[in-house]
């Protein structure tokens, strides 16, 4: 039952980059937000694994913080999606280009 911690970290890395690819490639903002959640969770996994290695629950506290931030981020992100949808009727991140230089 003794798994090398490196495997946890590698797993976290795989999840993280799947999230990254999702953020860049997908245009549906809902799926982009979900991909971001994936990235959060990947980071959480790494934190929990490290906490376990060092036997230090500061990592756990940090995950708790990340969960809070993720919740807040999801709420605000979805609110933005709703607001944008009201305005543009399209749900597409490429439509929101108001910061064009």
């Amino acid at each position: 039952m003794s798994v090398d911690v490196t495997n946890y970290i590698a797993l976290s890395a795989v999840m993280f980059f799947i999230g990254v690819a999702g953020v860049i490639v997908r245009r549906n903002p809902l799926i982009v937000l979900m991909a971001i959640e994936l990235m959060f969770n990947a980071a959480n996994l790494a934190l929990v694994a490290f906490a376990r290695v060092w036997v230090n629950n500061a990592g756990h506290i940090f995950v708790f913080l990340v969960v809070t931030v993720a919740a807040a981020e999801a709420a605000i992100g979805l609110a933005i999606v709703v607001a944008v949808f009201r305005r543009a009727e399209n749900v597409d991140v490429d439509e929101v280009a108001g910061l064009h230089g």
Partner: protein
Amino acid sequence: MSLFYLLAVILIASAIFTITQKSPVYSVVGLLVNFLALAALYFTLNAEFLGVIQIVIYSGAILMLFVFVIALLSSGVGPFRAGPNRLPRIAAPALLTTLVAFGFLIFGIAQRPFGPLPPHRPTSFLGNVGDPNVFGSVGDFGVALFTVQLLPFEVTAFILMVAVIGVVLIAGDAVPQPTLGRHRPQKRAAEREPILKAPAP
């Protein structure tokens, strides 16, 4: 051992499923599987409280929020309408860079293997704080949260409050609707006011 690999396969598969679905509802289902598997993984790492939190908050609260929004946006309108793809050729470089970064990360991790997890057997959920044998238990976590880490804990409350206010402001009725111009056509790039005017030579 085999539990880890099983969960790992589930995690990766569900993550890929999540980002590849056309309909966001399927993605939510994929994400749900992903979160549940992750919760299980947390238990294998002695993070009991976090495992529970993962199920309650992520799988329960956040994913429900997604579902609500999907329902709200697509009700009566049909499937989401997408605009033209302005970056049609981004997929290849994005995937390439992702793979390269991933490769370097794995390369870096592989340089210094951490070795196996140190042995650890929790005996009770309510032990003495600082006792390595109770690491990760709810009691351990709670005592840390309310003593040493009290300030970050309070900050989370602040963050959530700000987020609530932000959501109300962004999506609530406080935003005057008509001024946003439902049917106003977006200006093309050439017509927009430049933010920084080039100075006269």
